[in-house]
């Protein structure tokens, strides 16, 4: 079993590298995979020849590489936070998009865009992105706390209430976003549409730099909380009886996972169902032990978003599909499948 789990990590890592290399080569300017490898090797100083064209190098460095790296970061963030949130809510159906966390993040992001344009016109780019990330993080956190508090009765979280509260938060955030849309000018409207559909098209080294700490921190810390999240599956009372300081754990998990979701939403908008699809697939492959599910979800999320981004860039090239459309198209049937398969077993 352990060998099977370790080999899954290895396989996912290899697949991620291959997908990334492949994705780097695809687009309006095709770059052979070999050249991609050479340019990457050059970049980290392994290689100093120049058998590749400068144009290719430029496209790769300025356009493709930040986009692929951003896809990996956002995917890892969504994958791991999906797994962690499901752990805290004790239910495999909890998903950042479903319970209003993404909508909260997106609303705050939209508010920041509009306000930033009105108030801080002179703000530098990187600082602007940080502000956006913080805004989205705050929005995600507020939504998560509200849903969590509403869904709790007698110290247990009630999943039916949680999903209903999620619907409420989603439509409230949607209405407020709609209100802002109504008041927005053309430029802002375009940005807002971008947020609603989700896309990695805005990728630059600056956005990558801006979200890296907000993604790395959760990706490095959350896997250490696997044992605690397993115990949570027994129930909060039971977890407490196993010696866990449940309030501290809950707070830390909510902060870390909303941080990851907030950062992801800030740069790429709402990319739905990754947080549902990824941990579910991992659980089918290696079981539900969070010690493995959390890190594997980060890897798998990165892989899935890299592939999804590759699809949305090439499917009807040169036009680009929003990535959120792709993930929703793949994710919704899976969600329905889980619902139908487990409808007898899930206790709401």
């Amino acid at each position, binding site marked *: 079993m352990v060998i099977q789990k370790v080999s899954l990590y290895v396989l996912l890592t290899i697949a991620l590298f291959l997908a990334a290399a492949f994705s780097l080569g695809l687009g309006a300017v095709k770059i052979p995979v070999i050249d991609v490898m050479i340019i990457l090797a050059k970049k980290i100083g392994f290689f100093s020849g120049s058998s590749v064209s400068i144009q290719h190098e430029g496209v790769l460095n300025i356009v493709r590489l930040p986009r692929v790296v951003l896809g990996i970061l956002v995917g890892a963030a969504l994958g791991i936070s999906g797994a962690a949130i499901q752990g805290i809510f*004790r*239910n*495999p159906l909890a998903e950042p998009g479903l319970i209003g966390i993404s909508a909260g993040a997106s609303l705050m992001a939209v508010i920041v865009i509009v306000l930033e344009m009105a108030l801080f016109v002179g703000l530098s780019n990187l600082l602007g992105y940080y502000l956006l990330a913080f805004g989205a993080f705050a929005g995600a956190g507020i939504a998560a706390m509200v849903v969590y508090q509403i869904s709790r009765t007698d*110290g247990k979280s009630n*999943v039916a209430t949680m999903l209903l509260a999620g619907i409420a938060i989603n439509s409230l955030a949607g209405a407020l976003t709609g209100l802002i849309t109504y008041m927005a000018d053309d430029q802002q409207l375009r940005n807002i549409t971008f947020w609603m559909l989700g896309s990695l098209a805005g990728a630059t080294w600056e956005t990558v730099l801006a979200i890296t700490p907000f993604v790395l921190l959760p990706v490095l810390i959350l896997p250490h909380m696997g*044992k605690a999240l*397993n*115990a949570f*599956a*027994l*129930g909060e*009372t*039971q977890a*407490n*009886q*196993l*010696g*866990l*300081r449940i309030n501290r754990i809950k707070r830390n998990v909510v902060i870390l996972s909303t941080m990851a979701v907030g950062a992801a939403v800030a740069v790429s908008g709402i990319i739905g169902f990754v947080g549902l699809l990824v941990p579910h697939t991992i*659980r089918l492959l290696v*079981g*539900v*032990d969070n010690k493995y599910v959390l890190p594997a979800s980060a890897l798998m999320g990165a892989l899935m978003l890299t592939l999804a981004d590759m699809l949305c860039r090439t499917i009807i090239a040169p036009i680009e599909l929003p990535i959120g459309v792709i993930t929703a198209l793949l994710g919704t049937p899976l969600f329905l499948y889980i619902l139908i398969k487990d409808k007898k*077993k*899930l*206790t709401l």
Partner: protein
Amino acid sequence: MLIADHISYETGKRMLVKDVSFSIRPGEMLVILGANGAGKSTLLRMLSGERTPSKGSLTLHDKEVSHYSSPELALKRAVLNQQNIVNMAFMAQEIVMMGRYPHYQNNPSAKDREICEEVMKLTGTTHLAERSYLSLSGGEQQRVQLSRILVQIWDIPNALLLMDEPVSGLDLQYQQQTLAIAKALSKRGFMVISILHDINLAAQYADRILMLKNGRKWYDGTASEVLNTKNIYEVFEIDSDVFTNPKTLKPFFIPKNTTVNLSSLS
């Protein structure tokens, strides 16, 4: 030793448990009996730390329970709750291993694994080890949860074992087996406190019985001392005959027929 000193629990304006005092020594098995709403579960929840007494004090091994940290308590006390809802498809053996979580940081030791195997053999759950918890029947799930509780304190001397209706939903064989295990553990030095509904099971296994009514301690003593027609009528409001089991010399209870008059309802 666990000492409950004049503990009460109040919620809103209702007193669910009023001024209850008792103590239990290592080696003893105490059964709590009482009608619905008598305050049994509330009392047990105070002992398990799920509720804090509004008045009175709880002392475990000469130290106030509230002065222990929850990791410390997890190594002294295990609780089998009445309701255990799990929505994630953990394997039965993973659920059982969670009972050892307080004992290890990252990876279970050989001893942790050994204890899990031993206990699962005892509770007859070995063959369920690799099955998903969600696919088990209610009774099987309950035995897996029991195993989890037992591995938690298996190697701890004088541990406190609390069980809220541990045999509801189990068939006759496992009802007997569960209580026999609890009894054997008490003989090994555990303090066992269990809520039961079946008076005969209580008579069979309890060293002492605590009878609750309206949140108060009504009677406290051995089965022969407290289980008689009069006391049972007072606490449960049913007529019954109580005999002595000639083999064990323990009391043995048979309820009398209750007549319900439906004609007045028309």
